[in-house]
């Protein structure tokens, strides 16, 4: 179509950046996990854009795999959050310094 691929890449970069900022700023571990999902989505946009620009569908297949990995990551990550919440009664990452003594 008439939309240049650079626009998609720029949007992808901006969304990825917002995800990075979310991981760095927020203390709530659930929001940090959501920011990671946002970053995965930003990467997916660039994958699909490049797949369309080159006319090769394998980039889209890769996005399916990324989505599966995101689902697995969310399931295990949130299970870890629940497990830590049981012991610490908190979702603040500053309270998650389990390896300190």
């Amino acid at each position, binding site marked *: *179509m008439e*939309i240049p691929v*650079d*626009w*998609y*890449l720029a*949007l992808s*970069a*901006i*969304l*990825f*950046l*917002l*995800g*990075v*900022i*979310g991981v*760095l*700023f927020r*203390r*709530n571990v*659930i*929001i940090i996990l*959501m*920011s990671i999902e*946002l970053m995965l*989505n930003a990467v*997916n946009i660039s994958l*699909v*854009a490049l*797949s*369309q*620009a*080159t*006319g090769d*569908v*394998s980039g*889209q*297949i890769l996005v*399916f*795999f990324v*989505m*599966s*990995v*995101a*689902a*697995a990551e*969310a*399931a*295990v990550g*949130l*299970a*870890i*959050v*629940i*497990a830590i919440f*049981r012991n610490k*009664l*908190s*979702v603040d990452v500053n309270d998650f310094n389990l390896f300190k003594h």
Partner: protein
Amino acid sequence: MTPQFLFFCLAIVAITAALGMLIARSPVSSALWLILNLFCVAGLYLTMNAQFLAVVQVLVYAGAIMVLFLFVIMLLNVAALPSVRDIDWRLGVGFVLGVALLAQLSYAIASSTDLMPAEVSLESTVATGSVEVVAKELFTRFAMPLEMIGVLLLAATIGAVLLARRVSPK
């Protein structure tokens, strides 16, 4: 409604929703902002002729993953969530790192105009992303990665069951 106009609408809403997710105080509204963002990304997939991917995006992300997130937010005690956002040194460091990353990425995008092949045949891209095209690639070239995804999901199932199950006292 030209495609460019549609792209700008979706992009602006997507960025606004991402910002809303970052600055929302309650995790529930954060999750709702992220769902809006995911819907916009699904719309962007449609503008790129990836129809099946757009449907899957809504189905998996907005339908399943965000439900899990909202579930966990409800599962945990609302009163225990951090109420005040801290603005400490991490904000400064994060801002500098973010700007550096943006500069790097935009430099990479701006300087890579020869990334694309000179000639892209429009005929091949038009059909891209329909279920048939995706299935043909998925079950022939990507058969082995598909099995690996099965193993990954199995590992995630077992891991999540082990982690989340309440350890019953013997």
